[in-house]
């Protein structure tokens, strides 16, 4: 792998599927996401990440680095290199770019076998279909990550605020993006959690960031806005 695999918390061995049928177990997440998803991804649950983007990929990265397999369904334009830089090893990735009209059946089949299925639904799925897929995730102990809207999801994450650094008006280049991610659960009493992340950092990894100046003190990692080398030179 070209980037070092991010260190992950490992709460339960992924390959042991015996505990899965009871719905027990958690899949680890990247350290930067622990604050948002304490313990990790609950097996058998549905987690949404707003639209498609690096957040969706990084949600799967921790578990895949720990040995889990991930299938991405309905995204013809996956940036595989971005996934790799975020810690999601392409080695254990399956792509079903165009699942066609039978996409729900494909997703149900993949949930039985893959630990994580990352889905961008081609259409707003009717409630009956959603319940069917939720049941499949529960039965097989997998996690359905949805890049989109999914009423009834156990956790919802979304990127609330983003700022690119390193790029100006006619100079520099995109170096890193600081993003505020907000996680909320289904329970009404649960308070939404929020965290600032480098999504991505300058090497493509997803790490914790300090809140921007004005919200809290200056970040320890600086702002990655130093002198930039050119994006590319003539070949």
């Amino acid at each position, binding site marked *: 792998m*070209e980037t070092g695999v991010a260190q992950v918390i490992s709460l339960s061995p992924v*390959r042991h*599927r015996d505990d899965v049928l009871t719905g027990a177990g958690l899949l680890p997440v990247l350290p930067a996401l622990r604050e948002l998803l304490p313990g990790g991804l609950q097996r058998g649950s549905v987690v949404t990440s707003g*639209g498609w*983007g*690096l957040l969706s990929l990084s949600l799967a990265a921790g578990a895949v680095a720990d040995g889990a*397999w991930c*299938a991405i369904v309905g995204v013809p*334009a*996956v*940036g*595989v*290199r*971005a*996934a790799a*830089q975020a810690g999601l090893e*392409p*080695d*254990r*990735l*399956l*792509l*079903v*770019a*165009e*699942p*066609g*009209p*039978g*996409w729900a*059946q*494909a997703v149900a*089949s*993949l949930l*039985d*076998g*893959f630990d994580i299925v990352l889905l961008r639904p081609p259409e707003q799925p009717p409630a009956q279909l959603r319940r069917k897929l939720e049941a499949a995730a529960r039965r097989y102990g997998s996690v359905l990550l949805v890049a989109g809207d999914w009423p009834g999801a156990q956790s919802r994450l979304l990127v609330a*605020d*983003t700022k*690119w650094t390193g*790029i100006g008006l*006619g*100079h*520099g*280049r*995109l170096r*890193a*993006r600081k993003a505020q991610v907000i996680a909320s659960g289904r329970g009404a009493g649960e308070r939404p959690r929020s965290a600032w992340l480098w999504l*991505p*950092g*300058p*090497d*493509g990894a997803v790490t914790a960031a300090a809140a921007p100046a004005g919200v809290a003190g200056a970040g320890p990692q600086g702002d990655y806005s130093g002198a*930039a*080398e*050119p994006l*590319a*030179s*003539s*070949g």
Partner: protein
Amino acid sequence: MTGQAASRRVLVLRCADWLDSDRAGDDNAAARAFEPVVAIVGEFCPQVEVLRPGICAIGTRGPARYFGGEAELARKLTEAVGRGGFACQAGVADGLFAAGLAARAGPTGVLVPPGETPEFLAGLPVGVLGMPELCELLPRLGIETLGQLAALPSAEAASRFGPPGKLASRLARGLDPRPLIARRPAADLSVQLEFDPPAGQSEPVIFAAKALADQMHDRLAAAGLACVRVQVQVRCADGQELSRLWRHDGLLSALAVAERVCWQLDGWRGAAGITLLRLVPDQLVRATGRQLALWGDSVPSDRVARAAIRVQAMLGHDRVTRPVLAGGRRPAEQVLLVPFGDAGVPQRPADRPWPDQIPAPAPATVFGVPLAASVTDDSGNEVTVTGRAQPSAPPAWLAVAGRPARAVTAWAGPWPVTQRWWDPRHARRQARFQLVTQDGAAWLAALQDGRWLIEARYD
């Protein structure tokens, strides 16, 4: 050298409708749908070789003599299949590879006369080899067609590009991919399993098939052999037998064999319980080590493989892929998609320094086909780039794929990229920009031949 002998005459039948269709939604509909076609072809020649559902092949030597020539055979065959309700194309040429391409040529396929296969192949682009790594590399070296590849001395191709190069060079000349070992498969290389009581469902049989295939591979490996064609024989409780030949040019891994057993059984549903499964390695080649795992240690577990194969049966073999990082200038060139279960190309070094490669962080969305866009300045004029790599004006608005324009809040560039400067006909000049829009999105844009394109989005 025996390997230079002319390839045998082959007819390939291709059901294009079937291959492109979306028979999704109904499990394994695709695999089932092909079985009647194979049955029709089987009436012309009992030795039908199924390359994958949708494509099958027969040797023409015997049947052509019986049906009055190759053209007549192809005509009668396509008519018979047509009567069965399936549109198909038939191609005849020397060797399986060329015949497969002949079936794709023209609306009904073409008949390449004996000996003219190299001429037929010469004009085709190297992309038809279906070897992603090589097909990306060769055009960079100015080798665009099979004719140009065939013109290279084969020893040269082998030493420069390794075993894939040797294989490609043989194919481009209209030779069989590897010299087959002229030896009947010894009986002791076949493996079989009896089911008592008969197995009613296909899943246990498919699992048995995987174990059997492993066993067969161990025996082959012990003899220094690999197989490119395997015969799968299934016997039912009512005495009926179904036998099919399956070919796979990536060499048949244990998983690939199990997959084909799955297709065969799906196409044959409704039969009585299965009592016997036998695998006979049918065409043997010397093992050259091409089967080394492409994905390092990440060998899928049975459970993962089963899920992936099931979805392949629904959607088609090629539509369920594993990505491999590769070198390349454009973001979309940096990933190869290899169908699940295929023995892919050898690991390619993605860490080679590719000039003009976009530095980290990489974009999370990479468009295989770049989106048309429009980038305008404050007064609404399209932004251009001068010969000295200066933008005509600062980009102020970005409209992607005809959607409303968004204000550009930050931008950088242009960075000139020149591809294939050594080949004036295919040289491509680009000026790359990065743009950040008001909604917080960031884009990788390029100006090429006076048109703006969006290659990727950072999101």
